[in-house]
């Protein structure tokens, strides 16, 4: 079993860190061999103390349990969601706390009951309720925009003539694909909306080339998110990735529809 302990120094005699997100080190200990690795806590310099970097680090280290002084509810929730047990309110040296943990004193004190490791596919109630809640949240987040798009499609159907559509999407494969990719690059949001818009445009007789490039560019190219992508991943990465994705959305659209037509004869 692998245990992550927040620590003020890089050995087992170090004191347990008061705060999970801000302590200087994380000691990743194998509870059976007591072999350990001291990892500088990437969140130590993050004065906001959000702990995101520490959470990511712990998850990536295949840790089973986190022992610490204090942890934010948000970080605890994310660790628990990933099946990582979290015990807080601990103090003393890392070695002392580990010893207590191995004896089961900490778990008894905190009323923690270790679940037997399940083998095979077994759904427990808590996981099901959590999954239901997450799905309901995701669905609820998706619905307002989806309903609005469908209502807007109604207005579109009532007011926009086929002639107007044909003046934009003329039936020229290359041009239609470019227009579709442009539209997909500007519009953003859940891709389900692109499928619905594409499906309705198809009924208007707009070519599948245009619709396909719209659907691909909707997710892979993001003019709206471009500033955020530049900040996170760098200017050249964001610009090159979006430019190449734009071009490829057109190419993929053309290849997809050509292959589809070949298969359908």
């Amino acid at each position, binding site marked *: 079993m692998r245990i992550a302990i927040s620590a003020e120094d890089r050995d087992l005699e170090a004191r347990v860190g008061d705060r999970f997100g801000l302590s200087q080190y994380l000691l990743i200990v194998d509870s059976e061999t007591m072999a350990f690795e001291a990892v500088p806590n990437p969140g130590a310099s993050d004065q906001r103390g959000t702990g995101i970097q520490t959470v990511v680090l712990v998850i990536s280290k295949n840790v089973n349990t986190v022992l610490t002084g204090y942890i934010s509810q948000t970080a605890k929730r994310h660790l628990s969601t990933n099946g990582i047990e979290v015990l807080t309110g601990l103090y003393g040296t890392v070695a002392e706390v580990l010893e207590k943990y191995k004896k089961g004193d900490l778990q008894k004190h905190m009323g923690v009951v270790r679940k037997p490791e399940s083998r095979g596919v077994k759904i427990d109630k808590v996981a099901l309720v959590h999954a239901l809640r997450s799905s309901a949240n995701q669905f609820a987040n998706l619905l*307002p*925009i989806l309903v609005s798009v469908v209502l807007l499609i109604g207005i579109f*159907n*009532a007011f926009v003539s086929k002639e107007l559509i044909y003046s934009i999407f003329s039936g020229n494969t290359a041009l239609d694909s470019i227009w579709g990719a442009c539209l997909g690059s500007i519009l953003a949001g859940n891709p389900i909306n692109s499928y619905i818009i594409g499906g309705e445009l*198809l009924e208007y007789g707009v070519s599948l080339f245009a619709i396909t490039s719209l*659907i691909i560019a909707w997710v892979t190219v993001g003019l709206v998110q471009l500033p955020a992508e530049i900040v996170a991943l760098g200017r*050249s990465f964001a610009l090159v*990735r979006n430019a190449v994705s734009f071009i490829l959305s057109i190419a*993929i659209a053309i290849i997809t529809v050509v292959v589809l037509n070949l298969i*359908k004869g």
Partner: protein
Amino acid sequence: MISLDKDGPQSARRKRRVLLTGFFPASVLVIYGILFAVMPDKASMALRSSGHVFLNIIVPLFLVFILMLILNLFLKPAHTVKFIGKGVGIKGIILTVTAGIISIGPIFAWYPLLKELQEKGVGNPLIAIFLGNRAVKPFLLPIMIAYFGWIYVLILTVFTILGSLGVGYSVGALVKEKTSLSFHV
């Protein structure tokens, strides 16, 4: 999905997002309100047309919910995180493609994590491949199939995945890595 956005400046960002998300539905409702006042016939026609669209997507939407539930039940965020940038060569690419396909949530929520991975040495090509494969949405397949048919969806999925490799290759060739720890692809 990992997005610890309850604290600090991220909270303001979240509020702004909520405002923006609410702005669009509110605008549509205002448009309908004006239409019903000015052109009630056209407004009724628009509403009927929307009703038809809803009827067409209601069953696929139910399937979408079921698929979301299954994914949430069996795929923990850690699985996705662990996939990105693990392994080398073909294995690394396959794992990253898988991570992109099973990743959920809005893209901006992924940026902090991707930045983290980039700083840890995950190569730009793999990050680009991950982003490209977010276009493949398994839980939205029922809606897509309902509109376009499964053959189209299958072909598009295959070419989208291949296309993401093209984007990854191009980014690798054109963008200088931030770090020398590029041990992938």
